[in-house]
């Protein structure tokens, strides 16, 4: 019984909107633009987040970089100032550790044939290389003094020489002592392998065995025991799986180190982008608020215009609730239809933005600057409907309160 009458009142609401098509459509366009504004803004935020975090997606999510601890006052365990071999061994004993390597980094140059390029030298424990997630496109992991080229370095060499086969070519490592007069020392080596591109720092590095690199650095600087004195640059830890990441990070920090994981970085990027999305969504909401005022305005006008009709309906049996409901349904329809058309509009807009982005970046793959996830689409429609209902509350109450006598007097 109750549903039946609602069906009729919904029909009345629909009919009265249909009777004033142009005005309904104009009001609807406001909501459409508002909704499309919110969706487009938020989807831009989401697209940006995806494209930024996507950069890191290739990198190993289970890896943790360990640095010497920082003195943060008296609290906590004793901080580790220098990373030495026994630090590496201690970390290796921790739960959830799959592989560990000390990392020693220095800057220098690499000469192959007649070409010399700047390079970062990264020394790692080659026996652990595979476990650490290093992947080769060519060659093998060297055991001796051979080096592995990062993909970006290879690209530089290819573009300079026009050749592309550098595997097993002999090369020269050039390291300089920075103190005093700049003196370069050369070490003979060979390209043992080519590293697969990961999007990370490895692409720009010459990777080699850490002991060999340390030995070369000691020779070029005439220093002894640099690991005992200065320590390794960092320690790279790879966890067995994602689940142990948090506890492992905590354990490392508690032991007096400072650790960074890709997971931490992604999480902090994520929280930044949540804020960006909220901000952009807020900007879009302004348009929707303006549109809501438009609904209220249109419907107040409508109550004036339909005063007589409302009065007559009250005389022939419409209750106050019936009148209020009819107006609320009208506002709901405008909100709902505005939301749906806004969604369609923003899908089109999103396609155009992505098309332009792809064109202007001359990429072969489609770039998705904006993305509309299903939750955003649903949220937008629900939100615009609620906005419609809220905007209709005042006019609906106004209409319900119209005095029958006053209404009948208006001609």
């Amino acid at each position, binding site marked *: 019984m109750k549903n039946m009458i609602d069906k009729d009142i919904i029909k009345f609401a629909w009919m009265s909107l249909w009777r004033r098509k142009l005005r309904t459509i104009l009001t609807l366009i406001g909501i459409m633009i508002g909704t499309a504004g919110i969706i487009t803004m938020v989807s831009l935020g989401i697209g940006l987040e995806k494209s930024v975090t996507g950069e890191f997606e290739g990198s190993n999510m289970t890896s943790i970089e360990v640095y010497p601890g920082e003195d943060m006052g008296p609290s906590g365990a004793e901080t580790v100032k220098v990373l030495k071999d026994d630090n590496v061994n201690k970390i290796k004993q921790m739960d959830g550790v799959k592989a560990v390597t000390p990392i020693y980094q220095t800057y220098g140059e690499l000469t192959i044939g007649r070409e010399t390029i700047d390079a970062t030298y990264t020394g790692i424990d080659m026996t652990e290389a595979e476990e650490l997630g290093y992947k080769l496109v060519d060659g093998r992991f060297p055991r001796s003094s051979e080096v592995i080229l990062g993909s970006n370095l290879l690209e530089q060499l290819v573009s300079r020489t026009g050749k592309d086969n550098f595997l097993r070519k002999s090369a020269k490592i050039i390291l300089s002592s920075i103190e005093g007069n700049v003196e370069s020392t050369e070490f003979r080596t060979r390209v043992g392998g080519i590293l697969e591109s990961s999007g990370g720092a490895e692409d720009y590095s010459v990777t080699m065995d850490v002991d060999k690199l340390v030995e070369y650095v000691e020779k070029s600087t005439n220093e002894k025991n640099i690991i005992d004195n200065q320590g390794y640059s960092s320690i790279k830890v790879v966890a067995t799986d994602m689940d142990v990441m948090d506890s492992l990070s905590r354990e490392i920090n508690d032991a007096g180190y400072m650790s960074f994981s890709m997971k931490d970085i992604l999480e902090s990027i994520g929280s930044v982008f949540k804020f960006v999305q909220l901000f952009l969504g807020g900007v879009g909401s302004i348009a929707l608020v303006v549109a809501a005022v438009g609904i209220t305005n249109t419907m107040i006008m409508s109550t004036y215009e339909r005063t007589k009709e409302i009065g007559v309906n009250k005389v*022939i*049996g419409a209750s106050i609730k019936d009148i209020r409901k009819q107006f609320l349904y009208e506002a709901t329809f405008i909100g709902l239809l505005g939301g749906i058309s806004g969604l369609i509009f923003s899908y089109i807009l999103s396609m155009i933005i992505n098309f332009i982005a792809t064109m202007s970046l001359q990429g072969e793959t489609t770039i998705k600057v904006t993305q509309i996830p299903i939750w955003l689409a649903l949220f937008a429609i629900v939100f615009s409907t609620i906005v419609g209902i809220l905007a209709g509350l005042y006019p609906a109450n106004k209409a319900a309160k119209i005095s029958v006598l006053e209404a009948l007097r208006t001609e």
Partner: protein
Amino acid sequence: MEEIIKLQGVSQHYTLGGSTVKALDEVDLGIISGELTALIGPSGSGKSTLLNVTGGLIKPTMGDVTIKESKMTDLSENGMCLFRRDNIGFIFQSFNLNPTLTALENVMMPLIYARVASHKRKDMASHALKLVGLDDRKDHKPGELSGGQQQRVSIARALVNNPEIVLCDEPTGNLDSDTGREILELITRMNRESKVTFIIVTHDINVANICDRIVTLKDGKIMKDERKGKNE
């Protein structure tokens, strides 16, 4: 006989330009079920106000209106709407039909608000239109009907929900005399056949003369109250 409508000490005051106007001044009136009553009087005598107070369209400043044992003056506005819906039909001078709906749809409106099941509505509305002699004009919109036909539609609308009371405000006021007479005949027939209580506000003495009872108002007071050939 049973009084279906009872007005006791009903006053209606307006403030107009600082001075109080007494549209109704302590009126007592009882209407017997099935009566056809005319309210007459010069303009400004309060006859329309009396009708509106009776129909619950306005609440009187003082006094009580009791219809079928329910005190109208104690009801909330929404309660009044619901009571009106179930018990009272209205007929206006200016018909007040919805111009966008057909005759049938106009007649169906009170049934929709009264929550009558949708399959019954059409039959009830068609039947009401048949009673007023308009079953061949069902699908016409008010704009396509003559004044007399429009008033018939509004009579059908007032009667469709089988109210016990129908209040008419100058029902022939917008019609020529021939059409007016037809409408009056229709009203008297409805009154005789279905025992509906009618109150008609009019300034036309011809209208008043066909009624069972003529109540004359002046300055918000009942001046004369006569029943034709019947005992009190």
